[in-house]
């Protein structure tokens, strides 16, 4: 199956809880042609910053998003939680909250 490409979100969305072991992800639409901008904040940035960025971007890529600004505020989340929160934020941005 071919991955979707150039998918744009039209509204801001958030996911995650502001607590240890979790990650707060915010997505917002960015200017056309700006691609994907990811900003990572983490208490463990020196150790895991690159890994957190890679995990978050991998999910964005699976959805084929472009022209999006993503902020990831990490509080020591494991990879599964990072991926899940980014996925939730994307789904909310694309389809709206429940």
């Amino acid at each position, binding site marked *: 199956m071919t991955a979707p490409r150039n998918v744009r979100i039209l509204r801001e969305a958030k996911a995650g809880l502001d*607590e*240890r072991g979790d990650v707060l992800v915010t997505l917002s639409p960015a200017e056309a042609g700006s691609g994907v901008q990811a900003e990572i904040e983490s208490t463990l940035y020196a150790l895991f910053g690159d890994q957190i960025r890679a995990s978050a971007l991998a999910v964005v890529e699976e959805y084929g998003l472009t022209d999006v600004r993503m902020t990831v505020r990490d509080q020591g989340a494991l990879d*599964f939680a990072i991926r*899940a929160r980014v996925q939730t934020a994307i789904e909310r941005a694309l389809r709206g*909250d429940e």
Partner: protein
Amino acid sequence: MARLRRSRIYLPGNRPRMIQKGPLLGADAVILDLEDSVVPEQKDAARFLVTNAIKSLNFGDTEVMVRINPVSTCGLKDLAVVLPAGPDAIVVPKSENREGVQAVEKAILQSNLDKRVAILPLIETARGILNAYEVACASSLVEAITFGGEDFTQDIGATRTREGREIFLGRGMLVIAARAAGVQALDTVFSDLNDEEGLRNDTLEIKRMGFDGRAAIHPSQIEIIHEIFTPTEAELQHAINVRRAAEIARCKGSGVALVKGKMVDKPIIERAEKIIRIAERLGLPIPAPEE
């Protein structure tokens, strides 16, 4: 033989820190919960979190159950997201009839997984108890029926007490339905975390009633539950003696044997075999029969 389900611990489906501890708790099963522990506006987030946890974390021998929301609300939506990750079992709350179980069975079979996913209906209403046998027989994927004591108490208009007299009949009816259907009977939680003695007494009581295990709401409860649902050395020794006596009797053409002066026949032999199977499953040392 069905999986060992002495304990199963509830973990809130939208709390990553608690979920990631799941494989380390030593419970026979974890229940990743999408129902009561998740507020409506976070159901979507919990589905994705549980799905990613099942895909990423190594749960080892711990059975991974997911409690979905009732089929009458968003349970089927939960299944659509969670099933592709391949959980071991689906706990179906507010189960009251065969149709609900069969809707879950259909979703499982349509997901084309290369593994078996068991169904564990959670029976927690008066109607559910009266239909427990029908629920247990609704699908060949049902491996156990489980009792939800808190909701049941509320549903019948009773008051929950430490002694649990108000749920005695419901528990008994559930065990009978489970046995008639040939599936396991699993009991409810013990809600008072600070009452170890109460948990111990209540768990002893349900073991005597025929339950195969119970749910936990805190890791501290697991050890006590396992202690009670694990055969003691004396029980295992007796079971081995019964098996040996039965074998000797069978060679002589008899279905009845004597162990230490007491008659043992088919039900006692079957109970002994069950104890031996649990001991073998747990890797306990199997003693030689006593002379």
